[in-house]
């Protein structure tokens, strides 16, 4: 087994969320839920992160930021889209500048429903994300040595 499961470092990005889901993400780090029990650490650096937590429907302005963050994360990596907006654009879906969810910009592995998503659901999503992470790590091992070259 790999150690990815024991030490998933998450990074949180607010892609034009109303802050409802963001507050719930931060709630996971408080003494009540304390995700550090599972080795989950909140980093501010995509290069150190294994799991990207995105809230909000992604708009025209932060679309490229989301892509850059995703590209800077090193493999294996997992994206968790948190909340109704991140899933489909939510209440802002019809807005002229809003993309319809995170998947319109980068591939998403786990969705969390809810407006706002509950902390329990977010923790559950991260744990499910660990399974995907493990799968991706297995696939990475089978690749030829050196892996694919990333720009």
């Amino acid at each position, binding site marked *: 087994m790999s150690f990815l499961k024991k030490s998933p470092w998450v990074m949180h990005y607010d892609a034009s969320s109303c802050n409802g889901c963001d507050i719930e993400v931060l709630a996971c780090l408080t003494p009540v839920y*304390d995700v*550090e029990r599972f080795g989950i650490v909140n*980093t501010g*650096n995509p*290069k150190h992160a294994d799991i990207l937590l995105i809230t909000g429907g992604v708009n025209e302005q932060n679309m490229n930021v989301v892509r850059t963050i995703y590209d800077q994360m*090193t493999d*294996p990596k997992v994206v968790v889209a948190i909340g109704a907006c991140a899933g489909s654009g939510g209440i802002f879906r019809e807005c002229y500048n809003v993309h319809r969810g995170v998947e319109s910009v980068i591939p998403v592995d786990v969705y969390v429903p809810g407006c706002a998503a509950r902390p329990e659901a977010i923790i559950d999503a991260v744990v499910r994300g660990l399974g995907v992470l493990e799968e991706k790590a297995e696939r990475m091992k089978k690749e030829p040595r050196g*892996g694919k070259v990333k720009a």
Partner: protein
Amino acid sequence: MSGPVGALIYVLLAPLVGGMLGGIDRIVSARMQSRMGPPVLQPFYDVLKLLGKRPTVVNHFQNFYVTCFLVFIIVTGAIFFGGGDILLAIFALTVGAIFLVLAAYAPNSPYSNIGAERELLQMMAYEPMLLITAMGMYVVAGSFNVRDIVRFREGLLGYLPAIFLGFLFVLTIKLRKSPFDLSMSHHAHQELVKGLTTELSGPSLAVVEVAHWYENVFLLGFVYLFFAWLGPVIAVAATFAVYLFEMLIDNVYARLTWKFTVRVSWLAAGLLGGVNLLLVFYMFRGRL
């Protein structure tokens, strides 16, 4: 422990001890914040995970510098635990730190470069006190060699109380604890605070982590020297107590600015270190 045996034990066991200390640090910090905290082996899980990530480098020289950082930190500890010259150990430590600064300067990233600049300022802040500590030990114990300082049976702490306090001061900088974790903090949620390691990822970050374990054990070895006359059991307990104290400081204080750090640590070096050094110099001037 004599010569090469001590050095070998250090090279083999320091990462284990350092990692465990890191785990204890995280649990104690969590309890201070009324959280449960991670398992004690968490630092090992982190490093093993980082080794499994795909290596991504911004600048290829980075890995060379990071490896040199690890090598020189190991050399530092090997000199120290081998009973060698304490000055030489301090100089090797400086060379190691410089390699980490070079690693942070290598990628053209503003966060990493600011971290490197702050690390240089921190080195400027702690070096004088570190050297004064070594000089104080020399004046009292009559030798720069660690094996002679350990054998000094009259109680180093009794002669060098102020130097010990000054050393604790710079130990906070060296262990990268608040209020002096300017160049790289372990609990950083912003890029700037992650400083030095912003552009390091995967295996190279793991190497930096392991080097920090080695470094922390070396620094606690330095603390041990002050208590060596009490016998190994009490001295190790006292050293651990000092480490717990540093954890408390880490959790109690907010991060300070670099100007304040340099100013206040030079003040500590001048007042606590300088005065104590002058005193012991007059006490032992016949011997010198």
